[in-house]
């Protein structure tokens, strides 16, 4: 494999890792606050649809992005009501949200656009277009670093950079602010937070809300940046891969970045079977690469490679003592 191909692969890795990373950080906020969320997939899908639909109608991708975040937030509210207010089962609520999104997006898409459950192709300003970082053209011919800067770092859509910036931001919020400390505490021992006079309900809703925003961006990225429009089931299990990455990263932001880059790299590889064949010398089953994230996660969960310990109060509705 030559240098140019490697750069291409890494470029694809970054693009494919972005929705995973956003969804993974979304799950991180939610689960650190003690709310399991297997509805990441559904929220992404709903956001992907509404962002593409609004962008197609209005011609503005920014309106689309806000609409996508709105769609995702609606589902977050449902999840919050079910799992915080009514103390229902968070996992069942997540399953319901996934199906709700899978069904509603197609039903509404068919009703609005009559194109078999897809939205019209997005063009021009209705999409997030690549932005060239300063001096990318000029530095292109500098050996090694020039192509890296030009091919790999420059020329992505703004959401890619947003996702990357979210990693230090998430770390800072969770580990350097009072809000973050309380948010983590509410996932470990809500009773202690309650005793300190801080509202458990409010904190958990805030976490679920942040989760909704990030899933919304992830979904909008899928439909308006990675691809040009919504198609049925376009999230294609990415919400679950993000969940896998979250466990792989043991609920920590920087490790989430590495896990998502790894899983993104696997996805990029399965798109380029010719490259892998050149490198390893034999044909690798693309299916195998696609499920490798899941297999790796099961191995991690099995505790053979370190132990993944989730937040202690995760999945438990908080009931004030009476």
């Amino acid at each position, binding site marked *: 494999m030559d240098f140019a191909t490697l750069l291409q692969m890494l470029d694809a890795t970054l693009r494919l890792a972005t929705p995973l990373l956003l969804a993974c950080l979304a799950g991180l906020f939610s689960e650190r606050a003690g709310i399991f969320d*297997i509805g990441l997939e559904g929220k992404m899908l709903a956001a992907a649809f509404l962002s593409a639909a609004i962008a197609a109608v209005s011609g503005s991708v920014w309106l689309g992005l806000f609409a996508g975040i709105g769609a995702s937030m609606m589902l977050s509210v*449902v999840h919050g*009501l*079910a*799992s915080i207010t*009514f*103390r*229902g*089962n*968070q*996992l*069942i*609520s997540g*399953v*319901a*949200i*996934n*199906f*709700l999104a*899978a*069904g*509603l997006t*197609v*039903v*509404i898409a*068919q*009703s609005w656009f*009559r194109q078999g*459950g897809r939205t019209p192709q997005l063009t021009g300003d209705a999409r997030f277009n690549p932005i060239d970082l300063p001096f990318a053209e000029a530095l292109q011919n500098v050996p090694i670093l020039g192509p890296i800067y030009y091919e790999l770092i420059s020329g992505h859509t703004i959401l890619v950079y947003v996702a990357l910036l979210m990693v230090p931001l998430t770390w800072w919020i969770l580990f350097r602010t009072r809000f973050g400390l309380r948010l983590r505490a509410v996932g470990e021992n809500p009773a202690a937070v309650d005793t300190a006079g801080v509202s458990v309900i409010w904190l958990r809703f805030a976490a679920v809300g942040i989760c909704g925003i990030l899933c919304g961006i992830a979904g909008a990225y899928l439909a308006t940046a990675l691809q040009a429009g919504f198609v049925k089931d376009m999230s294609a*299990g990415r919400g*679950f891969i993000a*969940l*896998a990455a979250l*466990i792989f990263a043991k609920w920590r932001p920087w490790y989430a970045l590495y896990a998502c880059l790894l899983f993104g790299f696997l996805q990029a590889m399965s798109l380029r079977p010719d490259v892998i064949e050149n490198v390893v010398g034999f044909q690798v*089953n693309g*299916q*195998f690469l*696609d*499920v490798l994230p*899941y*297999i790796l*996660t*099961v191995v991690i*969960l*099995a*505790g053979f490679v370190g132990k*993944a310990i*989730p937040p202690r109060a995760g999945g438990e509705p908080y009931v004030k003592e009476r």
Partner: protein
Amino acid sequence: MDVMPKWADVILIPLISILLAAILSALVILAIGENPWEALKLMVDGALGSTYGWGYTLYYATNFIFTGLAVSIAFHARMFNIGGEGQALIGGLGVAIICLFIPWPHWSLALLGATIGAAIFGAAWAAIPAFLQAKRGSHIVITTIMFNFIAAAVLNYFLIGALKAPGMEPATPKFPEATHLPSFQDMFNFGETTFFRGAPANITFFVALAACVALWALIWKTRLGYEIRSFGHSETAAKYAGISPTKIIMVAMLISGALAGMMAINNVQGEAERLVLNAVEGAGFIGIAVALMGRSHPFGVLLAALLFGFLYQGGAELALWTSIPRELIIVIQALVILFTGALDNMVRMPLERLFLSMRRAKQ
């Protein structure tokens, strides 16, 4: 003392939940510019208006009985088996291998063999998540989700490799004639009048009914069932009573996986008579809705499975005759899961308050 009488818990709450789901579904239909009442009439007519419609309704219901029972038995041990989809896929692999490679003399023996094969394959697929839950404490929900994806890949691997029939399509060859299960059309053929013509319902429906009875007996009439239920109510109490958590988790999940796998005798051996990709078509997930609505009781599961069979067949008819896409059924399914599962307390809390105030008024 319970706040509510038992009938309210078993009948009233599910009914209200379904009603809420139905109202919201009707609003969705209204919103996309169709008439909900007309839609309902079309669904009833298409699913229950002819023996052909019934044949499809019962065929779908058979699938959902198996997956619903699978989720139920896991619920009794307070586990959420979300992996019915994958277990049913792998069960299909078992059925295909048994039907293709063993020369069966008669369909009855083939049915027996395929049932055992499907159950073993399904149980094996549930065994690893169960083991990891019991021994390593890995959350069963996460592992079973992962195993759904891995199952799809495994199936794909076999269908483009070892088991592939000649041709382009990733599918096994057609099963031999001897493994053909009697369909309702074969069974209810009285000379001139043939019932269930062309519908896929087959003898597996009765296997599903038997499974309901067997599971009911297992849960409420045996020592093992008692142990499973007590483990589900309180793990610490069960441990104190000398019940091994490892054993209960393993056994409950193996039964669950076996039941989900057994769905394959209906859709793989009974209907398609060959194994194709995506043979399960989401039935594993519908099992969740069915189990929640049926309150994890085999009889409730039967009723809920019939309802979902009706919805499935009715939804297909809707998609055929109106502009309402099939995915509407997924919305209804999601609403049922939401109201009967996650938002249970939303219905329950006001009802409990109502019953409490009624009781006070009486005193």
